[in-house]
């Protein structure tokens, strides 16, 4: 598998394969298993794979071990390391799938892994929506506009979800060789879009869209941030907060109850109605 040398959704940000990634950062804070950070730098060390360091929101240096599984390298770059670059730039890295409605409204579906964000987004795409980004969604706030940025044009979907939605996986690349999860190309949007709504999935029993008000809006954005513990250690709390405040001002924020409990078409219809 060919590894990327550019970071999707961050134009100009580079991935460099080198032999000079440090083994430790001085004066850093441990923010996860094998992950430490300080202002301007985040270092991730993964056994049998290698070391990755995100630098100043501009680049990721990678030192791979011999025999490192390329699929895992790709996942680390697209997840924790891309989120680190976004945080280093003072922007929001939402754990989300962003889709664009036929009307042009751009919606970020947020929530924890396993709640069915991608499946729901794929169901919306079947209804004529377009994919913007899946996994870690970069959101910026500049000139009074909150923008979500495009990803690599694919969505990660399990075989079960593809079967449910009647999506063919023929020719799709596997996320890992050992599991039936695919990078599925989707009709997409390739330019940044003004973000109009943030909808967080929640696993209550009934399908219901609940509006979020006041300080809970910022709390929801914080809860929806990918690897949020990185932000403070990178010294970017104030910058990321300013971005979140801008996003909260410019978008409608709500919770969609019923994730994983209700039929995906019912959930999709609920979102369609809300956006209309």
């Amino acid at each position: 598998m060919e590894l990327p040398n550019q970071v999707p959704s961050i134009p100009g940000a580079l991935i460099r394969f080198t032999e000079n990634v440090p083994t430790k950062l001085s004066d850093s804070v441990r923010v996860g298993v094998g992950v430490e950070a300080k202002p301007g730098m985040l270092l991730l060390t993964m056994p049998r794979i290698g070391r990755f360091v995100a630098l100043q929101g501009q680049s990721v240096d990678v030192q791979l071990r011999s025999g490192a599984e390329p699929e895992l390298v790709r996942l680390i770059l697209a997840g924790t390391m891309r989120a680190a670059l976004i945080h280093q730039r003072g922007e929001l890295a939402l754990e989300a799938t962003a889709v664009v409605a036929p009307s042009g409204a751009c919606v970020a579906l947020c929530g924890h892994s396993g709640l069915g964000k991608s499946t729901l987004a794929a169901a919306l795409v079947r209804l004529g929506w377009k994919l913007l980004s899946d996994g870690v969604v970069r959101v910026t706030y500049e000139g009074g506009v909150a923008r979500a940025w495009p990803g690599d044009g694919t969505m990660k979907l399990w075989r079960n979800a593809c079967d449910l939605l009647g999506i063919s996986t023929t020719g799709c690349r596997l996320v890992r060789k050992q599991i039936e999860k695919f990078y599925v190309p989707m009709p997409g949007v390739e330019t940044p879009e003004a973000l109009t709504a943030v909808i967080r999935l929640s696993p209550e029993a009934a399908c219901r869209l609940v509006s979020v008000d006041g300080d809970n809006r910022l709390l929801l954005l914080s809860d929806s941030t990918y690897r949020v513990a990185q932000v403070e250690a990178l010294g970017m709390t104030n910058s990321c907060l300013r971005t979140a405040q801008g996003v909260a001002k410019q978008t409608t924020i709500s919770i969609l109850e019923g994730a994983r409990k209700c039929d995906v078409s019912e959930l999709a219809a609920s979102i369609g109605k809300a956006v209309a």
Partner: protein
Amino acid sequence: MTSKFCLVASYPKSGNTWTRLVFENLARGSVTPISINNMTGGVHGFGRRILFDALAPVNASDLLESEIESFLPAVFRHFAEQGTGQIFVKVHDCAHRSAMGEWLYPPDCVNAVAYLVRHPFDVAVSFAHHLSMTLEETVQIMGGADLVSSQIRALPLPLPQHLGSWSENVRSWLGSIPYRVTLARYEDIHADPVPAFHRLARSIGLQVTPTEVETAVEATRFDRLQKEEAVAGFREKPPSSPSFFRSGQPGSWEGKLDDALRARLFGDHAAMMERLSYRADGTVGPLPQPCG
């Protein structure tokens, strides 16, 4: 700051939730009963997956089961190091090591283990209700090697668990392991909850009086839990299960498990049942000492 785990371990449907609720009430010295939905979260159920994804270098949904297990000890250690006080952790896994040779729960992060057992006849009936499966399927699961859902087509929620068979689960926790384990039978707790919970609570380091235990037992009466679940639901209930708190009565297998299924359960688990004085006719004898 750092915290310590108290593992409340058991095969499913053996009194785990009741015991954790009593411990939580005692540890918090709560004046009003603690809600079933307000127990310490973070290290079991969906909370475990959220915790894993917050701390691991790659989300669980992109990892293989063996990789998830290899990261879990470090995830638990990181979580313990960030916390304070004692954290009660629901555990249904066998006591086991990851493929990397590490105990799933790092022994230096574990203060004590309360291990609960229940007559497998009652477990079978309750577990079938919980899983929304037939008794035949459930008895087969209890005698099988493992209940780890296939990861081929979707990652099981919240994360794969290694239950082992009923016997393997009990054997693993009563074997030679690097934890301080106190065994309690559900039937003994049910028959006389205050002294049973008092003994268990002291074994995990809670310095409480019998009066305090009595208050906690009253706060967690089965009918109260059923009522709360009916009104507010219970977040640990699987979506397919009609209710989490079903009967709670020892001997509730009667009239439900036929001769063939009882014989099969006894055939599968005779050695461990005899060790715990769980008889083939469904009755429970005195627990030989020492055990566990």
